[in-house]
C-alpha cells in the first residue's frame, strides 16, 4: 500500500535516504506504531529499503531496534501503519489473522536471531536442511547437498555433523546464517550479530556478509548498537531513537555530520 510512498509524507525528523537509482523498494515500513501495554515503543517509523542495500539499524539500547525487526519478520503484531516485505503485506492486528501474508513473508525473508536459536537436537547440517525439506518439500538428498554448499560458503563444512552445544558462538552464528539462506530469502534480517563475537571475529563476519551480499543477491537489514560495525559494513544507516528514526544516511556522513543533536549523544560525540 505504501510501495510508492512519496518523500512528502515523511516526517521532518526523517531526512532523505540515499537510494539505488532504480525501482521499487524491497521493504517499505510506513508509520509503524508498536506498543507494549501502555508504552509506545515505535512511534510512527517509516523507511524504504531498496534491493541490494545493506542497511544498519542502529541506536541506543532500548530504542526499539529489535522490536522493529520483530515486526518486520512477523513475530510481533503492531498497532498502526503498514509493512511490506517483497510481496508480503502486513497490517495491524493479531498475527493469527494474517496467516496467508505471513506465510508469504517467510518465503521473502530470513532472520538470524541475536542468540541464533539453533535446533539443539539436530546437527549443523540438519539444522540447515530441516526447513527446505519440511516446509518447501525439497527432496532430502537435494536439500542436503545444497546445505553442504551453504555450510561451505559460511566456512563451516568441517563442522557439519557437530551438535550446536559443541559449537562456538561464531560457528553457531554461521550455521544460523546458512539455515536462513537455505530458504533462499530476498532479505536477511540480523539482530545484533556482533554481540556474542570476539572483537577479532567481527572482521570475519564483515567479510562473510560482504561476500554473501554479492553471491546471494541479498538485501541486509542488520540491527546493531555498534556504530563502528555499521560503518564497516553498511551502505546506509538508520538511527532509531526512542521510537523515532532520527538519522538516515551513509554511516560515514552520520558519523561526521549528524543531523539530529540526539545522535551526537548516542555516538558519544558530546562527551568527546
Amino acid at each position, binding site marked *: 500500500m505504501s510501495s510508492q510512498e512519496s518523500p512528502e509524507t515523511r516526517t521532518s525528523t526523517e531526512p532523505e535516504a540515499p537510494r539505488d537509482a532504480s525501482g521499487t523498494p524491497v521493504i517499505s515500513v510506513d508509520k509503524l506504531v508498536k506498543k507494549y501495554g501502555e508504552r509506545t515503543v515505535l512511534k510512527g517509523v517509516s523507511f524504504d529499503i531498496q534491493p541490494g542495500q545493506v542497511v544498519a539499524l542502529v541506536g541506543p539500547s532500548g530504542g526499539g531496534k529489535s522490536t522493529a525487526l520483530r515486526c518486520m519478520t512477523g513475530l510481533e503484531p503492531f498497532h498502526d501503519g503498514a509493512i511490506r516485505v517483497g510481496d508480503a503485506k502486513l497490517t495491524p492486528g493479531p498475527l493469527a489473522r494474517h496467516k496467508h501474508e505471513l506465510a508469504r513473508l517467510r*518465503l521473502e525473508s530470513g532472520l538470524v536471531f541475536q542468540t541464533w536459536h539453533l535446533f539443539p537436537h539436530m546437527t549443523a547440517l540438519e539444522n540447515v536442511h530441516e526447513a527446505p525439506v519440511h516446509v518447501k518439500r525439497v527432496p532430502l538428498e537435494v536439500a542436503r547437498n545444497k546445505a553442504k554448499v551453504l555450510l561451505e560458503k559460511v566456512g563451516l563444512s568441517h563442522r557439519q555433523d557437530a551438535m550446536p552445544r559443541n559449537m562456538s558462538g561464531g560457528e553457531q552464528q554461521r550455521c544460523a546464517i546458512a539455515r536462513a539462506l537455505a530458504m533462499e530469502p530476498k532479505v536477511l534480517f540480523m539482530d545484533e550479530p556482533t554481540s556474542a563475537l570476539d572483537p577479532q571475529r567481527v572482521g570475519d563476519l564483515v567479510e562473510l556478509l560482504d561476500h554473501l551480499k554479492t553471491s546471494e543477491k541479498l538485501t541486509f537489514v542488520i540491527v546493531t548498537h555498534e556504530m563502528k560495525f555499521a560503518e564497516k559494513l553498511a551502505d546506509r544507516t538508520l538511527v532509531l531513537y526512542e521510537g523515532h528514526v532520527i538519522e538516515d544516511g551513509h554511516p560515514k556522513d552520520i558519523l561526521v555530520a549528524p543531523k539530529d543533536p540526539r545522535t551526537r549523544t548516542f555516538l558519544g560525540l558530546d562527551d568527546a
Partner: protein
Amino acid sequence: MYTHGVTSRARIARWLALIPLVLLAGALLSCGGHRETALERVRRTGILRWGGDIQGGEPYVFEDPGQPGRLIGFEVEVADAVAREMGVQAEFVQNDWSNLVPSLERGSFDVIMNGLEVTPARADTVLFTRPYFVFSAQLVTRRDDESATSLDALENHRVGTLASSFSWEILRERPVEVVAYEGTEEPYADLRAGRLDGVLLDDIIATRYGLVHPELHLTEDVADGYYAVACRQRETELCEAIDEALAAIAARGELRQILARWEIDNERQARLASWTDEDTHAMLLVRQRATFTAHHAWLFVEGAAVTLLVSVLAMALAILLGLQLALARMYGPKPLAAVATSYVELFRGTPVLLQLHVLYFGIMPAIRAGIGVDAGTEYDAFFAAVVGLGLNYAAYEAEIYRAGIQAIPPGQMEAATVLGMSTSLALRRIIVPQAFRIALPGVTNDFIALLKDSSLVSVITVVELTKRMTITAIDVRSYLLPGLLCAGLYLALSYPLSLLSRRLEAQLARESS
C-alpha cells in the same frame, strides 16, 4: 560423609543392643502369675465381642433401615442367643470384612461371626466352632445358555466366585477357569454381560445378588458348606464354650427359629440340631497344605509377564494420549484446551481403582449395549486393565510433557516460525522431540510406578503378579516365600528401568551444561 556414616551406624547398633533387654522384660512380665484365658475374660467382663462387617448387608448383620444406628440381622440374633446361653452380653465390633482374620489375631474382638465360611485355608489359621448355618454352593448360569447344565458341563469355561471363598476352593479343584472377584455384585454382572459362563457362590448370595435377575437361574447345588464362629488358635476353652452354646440353642430349636425369621431356614438346616463332634471333624478335615513348588514359581513368571504386558501397553497408550492432551492444552483452541484440562483434573483427582471399576463394570457394558454387541468376552478384563491404566496415566504424562514443552525456550518456536514452519510442523519437528528428551526420565519413573499400580487391575479379575502371590500364599499358608519371590520379580522389572532413568537424567544434565 564417611565419619557421618560411622556415627549413624554406631547409633543404630546401640539401639539394636536394647532389643534383647526389651524382649526379656516382656517375657518376665508375661510369665508372672496366672494368665487369664479368653473365656475367663469374657466371663469376668460379661461381654462377648464379635467382629463383622455391616457392609455385608442383609441378612447377616446390618443397620436397621427404619432405625439407623440399630443393628439387626440373623447373626445379631444368633450372637445374642449364644451370649445369653453363656450368661454374658454380645457386643458387635465393626471391621472390614477382608481383614477380619488378621484383626481377630490382633485381638480387636473375641470371635468372628459374619458369614465366614469354613475353608481348609482358614481352618489352618483359626479355630472353628460347629456351624450355625449350612449353606449350599450354588451354580448360577444364564437362562439362555443351554449348554451350561452343571459345573461339569462348564469344563474349560470361565466361572466366577469370591476370592478365597469356599466356592473358590471347590472351583480350584475342577477343570474350569476360575475368575476371582472382590465383591458380590460383580460376578453376576459379568455373568449377565457374557464375560462368565457361571458363578458359584453361597445360596444366600446367589439368591440376593444373582437370582434377582430374570435372565439368570439356579443350575446346580454343588456342595454344602458352613458358616461357623471363628476363635483365635489357642483359645480352645472359648471355642468349646461357644460350641456348647450353639449346640444348646440348636437342640431346642431356637437356632432354626432365628433362621426362619430371616427366611433362610431350609431342610439343610436340619443337620444343625443333630450335629456331632464327628461332623465337626469331617468339616474341618484339612486338605494337605500345599508346598511351594516349581509349578508355583512358573505361575509367578506368568503373573510377571501379565504385569509387564499390561504395563507396557498401558504406558504406550498413556504416552500417545498424554502428548495429545498436553498439546491440546497448550496450543489447542479454547474449548479443546478446556476439555484437556478437565480430563487431566478428572483422572488425577479420582482414584484409579474407581476408574477401573467404572470402565469395566459400567462403561464397557453400556457401550456394548449401545452398539448392539452384547456378548462380553474373556478379554474384556485385560482390555479394561490396559485402557483404564492408560487413560489414568495419560493425565500424568500430559503434565510431564507440558512441563517439558514449557522448558523449551520460546526462541525455538520463533526460529521455526520464521523458517516458515506451521505451528503443528514446528511442534512435531522442533518442540516435541526436545520436550520428550526432557520428559524421558519422568516418563521412565512413571513407568516404574505403573508397574506397581498395575496390581490394582486384580479388582477387575486380571490375575497379575501380586494376585498370583496372594493366591499362592493362601495355598501354602505363608506369605514369606511367595512374598519374597513376588518382590524379587517386581525389582527385576523395575530396577533396570530405574538405572535407565538415572542415566538419562545424567545425560540430560551433561547436555544442558
